[in-house]
Each structure stands twice: as structure tokens, then as C-alpha cells.
């Protein structure tokens, strides 16, 4: 029998539906891989019994001839930012250690309704703040990838959805949820050679997802290929009256709409992303991407996104500002950690709890956010950043007059080693330089594998689309996937 853990979402769904294998067998196979991969530290909590339960229900439905959901029989990993009823949810923070939600996030509930099962809660950067998965209270996630030539240095799986990327690349799950605030789906996908899409802001409900920066946070799927992303996004997305920013639109049939024929499509290449010091492997991969899209029938046009340079600084005002307020609820009163030093009053308890509960990066961002919102600085920082954000959105609007999609690298480099960038927060922030503009504008954006660099590490190509045009993004992703022939896998060492 084939190794079921080699299969992706579509293959598992089809196999289960046809009776080639049953869902419980699939769940057991992935449970075993999860159990054997502690070295990657991809999961904070493992829930093998949940995976089995969901699989049994699918098998029973199939036996009874009931219709099966879009994700029937597919066990997945759930980023620990999604609240899951009865299962600890921490956002990888000490401050939420032991917190067991009495509710289920809309996105995860949608997935369970579609027949998916949960293998466990995936590790991540604490409160989704980070690009390397080195800020988790529960330890670093290790990428399954290693540089070639006997270099055994542990590499970052990217972040913040690094548990998701590592687990998929290591075949601990065929797919996983991610969230993307400033690149947190795309960059980790790029680092481990998988696909991931951040849909248009408002497609996936934020209800029940631990908030980082509300105006940017968006959930999306991560998986081994474009089709699997389309299937899973269909299951995750949808209008939710409990989220005021949710889009009241029907969910398109993205999987059925997949079509890699790009004739008639124009793809823009933003000149501002062509950095002077750009990594040559990245530049070469980008050129390959352009050639592939041409081959698929697309017309390539040069475009300009003049405010690109300001996206990252604007992001590092807006996201921390929102976070400083969103994270005020972690105060040791209603849930989570409480640190009550002897004789402490209420305000001392807050300060002690939050100092002990939040990691260094979270504390740093809360402080930045507090500062930029504080009296006398609000307009200079926050208002100005929101104006620049409007200009960045306008840049994209102007670009859409010339093209339908934009192609760029996902990240400025391949995966770096753990610890290589932790000493300088700014150096770490720069990792998201290509990912952040689309986040600020709320646009759908996807990363697909574009090849390997000289060290044998995966690189990602990013496609950005117009608002609501996930289909266009997925189709271009598919066109690249079909031509890139990316089959490389991390060699198993864990």
C-alpha cells in the first residue's frame, strides 16, 4: 500500500470517497508521523484522538451513503492561533498557557464541518509576531530542510506560521491553517517549498482567532500544492456575521475554477522590488517565474509601485499599534497566567503578569505600539502610517490599470539559520519586505515554490492579485507549479 502521508488534500479526499482507503487509516498514518517528529517541535499540543474521531465520522458517513464534505477524511494541523473548543490554545505564549477555549473559531469550525480532522495545535511565533518561529514560548520550530554539503545547522521554517510550514514539509500533515498579518503564510511557505495563500482581507472570519493586528490579520491555507490550497480555502472562507469585517459574499468554487491557461492575462513586474543588493538566486528564480508565466500565455508588463519602500515602516507602526491594544486583554483576570507578587495591587498584578507572560518580541512590539499611539505622537506616527498605507493601496489600484496580477519573490532570501537574526529585530523585520505591501492593501497573495537556491534550499514566488481575485492568483500559481516541476523534499533526519 502507498504511504498515505505522501498524499495531499485532493488525493486523500478522492481516495477516501472512492473507498481506496479509509479515513481512519489516513489519520493513523499522520498521527504516527506527528508522534515521530518531536525533534521538529512543530506541535504544541497533539490531538491524535481528535483526528481519529473525525475520521471515524467520515468513514461512517461514507458507509451510510451520506454526502461527504470538501475536506472529508483529511487530517490537518491547526495553527495555535485558532481557538479550539476543549483544546488548549496559547498563541505560543506563556500568558495563555493552560487556556482551554469554550468555543471554536469560525474557520476551524468550517473545516471540521467540511470533514477535516485535527492532528494537533501547531507551534508558531508568539502571538504571530516573528518571521522565524523563534519567539514561541514553547521553543523554536525546526525546519526539516538543511543546507547541502553536510551543514547540519538548524534552519528557520519561517514565521509566524512556522509550525504549519515545517509540519507540511515534513509530511506530518497534508495541510494546515496559517494566518498572515504581514507575510506569515507566504514567507514560511517559501522557506520550506510548499504553497500558501492569504486571501482577500475579509474572506476568512477572524472570529475566534487570537488577534494580532486586526486590520491585517487574515487566515489562509498552507499545503503541498495549489489545488490543495484551493480546496482548503473553499472550506475555510465564508461570510460570518460575528465578524464585522467579514465579506458578505458567496465563496467561489476555486477548485473547479482552476485553469493554468493565462492567455489574455497581464502580469506586472514591479520595478521597486528589483533591489540593488538582491540575492542572485532570488533574481534568477524571479526570471524563471516570468518565463513560466509567459509560457502559460500571460503578457508581462513592467509596473511601478512607488511607495513600496515605505510599506515595511508603515507596517511596523500599524501592526504594533493595533497589537498593543489587542493584547491588553491578557491581564491575568479572566484567563491565562496570573502573576501576583506578594502584596501586589491590581496594577502591579497586570505589570507582573504581562512581564512574565509575554515573550521579548511581544513586549517589544507592545511597547512600540504604545509609544506610537501615545499623546503627542499619534499623528506623527499612526496617522501618517495610515496615510502612507492609503498611498500603498493606491499604488496597487494604479497598477491594476496595467495588469491583472503581480509577480515577485516571496522573501528576499532562502531560510536562514536559527539564531542568525535574533540579535537584531530590524534585520528580522526586513524578511517580510516583499510580503507586507499586499497585506497593507488587503489583497490576495500566494507563495508557490519557485526552485532551490545554491545551498539546495527552497525559494518562493509570490503572486498578488486584485481584491477578491483569489482565482486569478491560484491560476497563476498553478501555471508556475506546472512548469517549475518542484519535487524537492527535505531529507528525513528527525
Amino acid at each position, binding site marked *: 500500500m502507498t504511504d498515505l502521508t505522501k498524499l495531499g488534500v485532493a488525493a486523500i479526499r478522492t481516495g477516501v470517497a472512492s473507498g481506496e482507503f479509509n479515513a481512519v487509516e489516513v489519520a493513523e498514518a499522520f498521527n504516527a508521523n506527528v508522534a515521530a517528529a518531536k525533534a521538529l517541535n512543530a506541535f504544541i499540543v497533539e490531538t491524535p484522538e481528535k483526528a481519529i474521531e473525525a475520521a471515524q465520522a467520515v468513514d461512517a458517513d461514507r458507509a451510510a451513503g451520506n454526502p461527504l464534505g470538501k475536506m472529508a477524511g483529511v487530517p490537518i494541523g491547526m495553527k495555535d492561533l485558532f481557538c479550539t473548543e476543549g483544546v488548549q490554545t496559547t498563541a505560543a505564549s506563556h500568558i495563555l498557557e*493552560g487556556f*482551554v477555549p*469554550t*468555543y471554536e473559531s469560525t474557520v476551524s469550525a468550517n473545516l471540521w464541518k467540511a470533514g477535516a480532522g485535527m492532528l494537533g495545535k501547531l507551534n508558531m511565533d508568539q502571538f504571530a509576531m516573528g518571521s522565524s518561529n523563534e519567539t514561541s514560548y514553547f521553543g523554536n520550530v525546526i525546519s526539516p530542510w538543511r543546507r547541502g554539503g553536510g551543514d547540519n545547522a538548524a534552519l528557520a521554517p519561517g514565521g509566524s506560521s512556522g509550525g504549519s510550514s515545517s509540519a507540511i514539509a515534513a509530511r506530518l500533515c497534508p495541510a494546515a491553517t496559517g494566518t498572515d498579518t504581514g507575510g506569515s503564510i507566504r514567507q514560511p511557505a517559501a522557506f520550506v517549498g510548499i504553497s500558501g495563500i492569504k486571501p482577500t482581507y*475579509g474572506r476568512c472570519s477572524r472570529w475566534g482567532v487570537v488577534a494580532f493586528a486586526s*486590520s491585517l490579520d487574515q487566515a489562509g491555507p498552507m499545503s503541498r500544492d495549489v489545488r490543495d490550497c484551493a480546496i482548503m480555502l473553499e472550506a475555510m472562507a465564508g461570510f460570518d456575521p460575528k465578524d*464585522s*469585517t467579514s465579506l*458578505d459574499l458567496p465563496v467561489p468554487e476555486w477548485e473547479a475554477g482552476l485553469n493554468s491557461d493565462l492567455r489574455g492575462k497581464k502580469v506586472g513586474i514591479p520595478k*521597486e*522590488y528589483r*533591489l540593488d*543588493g538582491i540575492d542572485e538566486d532570488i533574481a534568477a528564480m524571479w526570471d524563471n517565474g516570468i518565463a513560466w508565466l509567459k509560457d502559460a500565455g500571460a503578457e508581462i508588463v513592467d509596473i511601478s509601485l512607488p*511607495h*513600496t519602500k*515605505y510599506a*515595511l*515602516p*508603515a507596517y511596523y*507602526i500599524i501592526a504594533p499599534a493595533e497589537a*498593543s491594544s489587542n493584547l491588553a486583554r491578557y*491581564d491575568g483576570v*479572566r*484567563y*491565562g497566567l*496570573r502573576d*501576583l507578587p506578594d502584596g*501586589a*495591587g*491590581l496594577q*502591579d498584578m*497586570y*505589570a507582573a503578569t*504581562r*512581564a512574565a507572560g*509575554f515573550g521579548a518580541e511581544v*513586549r*517589544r512590539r*507592545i*511597547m512600540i505600539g*504604545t*509609544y*506610537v499611539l501615545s499623546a503627542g505622537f499619534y499623528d*506623527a*506616527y499612526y*496617522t*501618517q502610517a*495610515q*496615510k*502612507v*498605507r*492609503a*498611498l500603498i493601496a493606491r499604488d496597487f489600484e494604479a497598477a491594476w490599470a496595467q495588469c491583472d496580477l503581480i509577480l515577485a519573490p516571496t522573501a528576499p532570501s532562502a531560510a536562514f539559520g536559527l539564531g542568525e537574526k535574533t540579535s*537584531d*529585530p530590524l*534585520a528580522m523585520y*526586513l524578511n517580510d*519586505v516583499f510580503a507586507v505591501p499586499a497585506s*497593507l492593501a*488587503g489583497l490576495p497573495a500566494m507563495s508557490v515554490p519557485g526552485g532551490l537556491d545554491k545551498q539546495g534550499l527552497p525559494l518562493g514566488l509570490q503572486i498578488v492579485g486584485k481584491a477578491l481575485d483569489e482565482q486569478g492568483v491560484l491560476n497563476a500559481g498553478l501555471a508556475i507549479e506546472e512548469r517549475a516541476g518542484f519535487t524537492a523534499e527535505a531529507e528525513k533526519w528527525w
Partner: protein
Amino acid sequence: MLAATTGLLAIRTTRNPMSVDKDTVNKIAKLSRIAISDEEAEKMVGELNGILAWVEQLGEVDCSGVEPMTAVIPNHLRLRDDVVTDGDVRERVLANAPAREGSFFGVPKVIE
């Protein structure tokens, strides 16, 4: 490492006109309700100044006549009907309380 990069990846290290000192760091920490040691505050001075100096390049963008962004995607605020659909879930509300006192959350005594 940063000096090697230019363009988009460059970090401007111009003097920060709103430079943060240790007192300011302590003030922000207090506003944020995060206890901070002296060494931490010391270290944070450098980090915050670095980040703030970098974000201050936004000041060079001409934003005259530009409204700050209010909605990422054109969308309208939906209003719900005035119907009681929730509440009466005390056990769920109190389930994770670090110091539950009967039907209440307990906190160190507040003197008003």
C-alpha cells in the same frame, strides 16, 4: 550585515528627532503594564530608537490631501438586530479564571 544592503533593505540611521531615553522607556512600560527591570529598560532604549529612527522615514512621504486608510477592502459596517442571542453562559465565561470567587472573577483588592 545591514550596511551591505541598499535600497529597500537599507535602514536609515539618521538621527532620531524623537529619540527615546530610559525615562521614556519606563513610562511606556508603565502605560503598557509591563514590569521592566533596569537592564531591560537600558537595552530597550537602543532597540526602540533603532526601530523608531527607521520608521521615521515615513515623514518624508508627502501625504497632503491623503485621508488615512479606514477600511482595507471597500466594505460597510453591518449592524445587527437588537435581539438577545447570547449570554447566560457563566460557566463558559468563568471556566479559565485564574482566581474564581463563586460567580465572580477575583482580583487583588482595589482601593478607590
